[in-house]
């Protein structure tokens, strides 16, 4: 979605405001591909929406949303997690499936995803869906929201990848398998002897 969005945004980067220096869109080579970008965007949007709906329905029915929704203290606690992750605070963070920063990030990105879809449809059919267009205070305002939301999602994605790499293999395998592995002491000793 981001790549095809950039193809649309940078289609006429040489003529209009592209938000980034020329070297950027030249480096990515995504300029002057408006037709292809639109075709990809209007195809992938359905997968994006269906995937988001499936994820939301799963969270509701599995009860997993309880692990992800921020708690009252999350907003203050998340700051401590941030300090911890930046190496500025030595005390360990509370061991939970998802810490407070994660709760905020994962709920936040879900909201961003929903906003991306809603502002996107407001742009896609501003006349057939006038209530949605007006919800975003008009066509050009919806464009701005759509762009800012994309920045947010890119920011989440980059942070997410960095954090997964930092967290190491055991965390990564738990993302895939859903199991967190704890090796029992006796096994360790058995292996070592």
């Amino acid at each position: 979605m981001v790549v095809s969005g950039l193809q649309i945004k940078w289609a006429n980067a040489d003529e209009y405001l592209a938000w980034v220096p020329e070297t950027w869109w030249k480096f990515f080579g995504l300029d002057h591909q408006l037709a292809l970008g639109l075709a990809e965007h209007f195809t992938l949007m359905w997968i994006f929406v269906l995937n988001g709906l499936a994820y939301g329905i799963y969270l509701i029915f599995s009860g997993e949303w309880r692990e992800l929704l921020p708690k009252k203290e999350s907003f203050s606690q998340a700051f401590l997690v941030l300090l911890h992750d930046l190496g500025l605070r030595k005390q360990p963070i509370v061991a939970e499936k998802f810490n407070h920063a994660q709760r905020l990030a994962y709920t936040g990105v879900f909201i961003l995803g929903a906003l991306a879809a809603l502002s996107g449809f407001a742009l896609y059919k501003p006349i057939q869906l006038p209530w949605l267009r007006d919800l975003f205070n008009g066509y050009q305002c919806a464009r701005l929201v759509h762009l800012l939301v994309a920045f947010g999602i890119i920011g989440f994605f980059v942070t997410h990848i960095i954090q997964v790499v930092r967290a190491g293999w055991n965390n990564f395998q738990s993302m895939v398998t859903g199991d967190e592995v704890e090796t029992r002491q006796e096994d360790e000793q058995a292996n070592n002897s």
Partner: protein
Amino acid sequence: MSKQTIPKADWRRRTSRSFFLWILGLGGLCSLLVFVSKAPLDQGIPTPLRTVHEWNGTLWAKVFSPIHSGENPIVPVGKVPRVNGTIGLEEDLDPESWSLEVITDRDTPGAKVIQLHLADLLRMPQTDTSALFKCIEGWSEEVSYRGVRFSDFLQELNVGHLPGGNEMFPFVGMETPDGKYYVSLDMDSMLYKKTILAVAMNGQDLAEENGAPLRLVIPLKYGIKNIKRIGRIFFSRTRPRDYWTERGYDWYSGL
């Protein structure tokens, strides 16, 4: 989450199964991407993407509602509308010698052809309206425009109906006099009350670069469908060619 203690072999099996499925899913997505990007082109874009374009068009044509009027801006009179395209406008045009050719049934050779001059159009009922004009490149601009509402135009000339019935031709085609720019549109969108064969924009007669002497303004579609300097209008049972569709864009392009 419950804690389980399981033998290492069981754990290995579970983990490899999960990773196998994960890689299978990832590989599936990647091969889908390759399949789409390597697919033969259909009018400038990979065939699967063209198929979805067409599917989207069909969907939105089905839920199309003419009651939505879009934006109704008040436009400062005298502002020159933004110019983006000049295809089909290259030759010099003498407004005196210009005439509009209306082909009542393109599919039937020898069907009636009507020639109209600007004065004929100015004698028809004139409509003033305004809209937010949207370019497919992303910019939009408030415009007001005056001219003959397309539904009035059909009534005045008694055209647009399939022979021997009340049903309308499903497609309308339009071309510049030199035939270098051409669009085709669905009749439902053409019958929308703000679809106008315009002779003036923002309170002034059309400038040459804005499509003098006659252009289409159809706020239900992106600017690419708002053809300037119309030389020919025709009705058809099959979809006529469309300049930007041939170059990879969505044919329906509805807003």
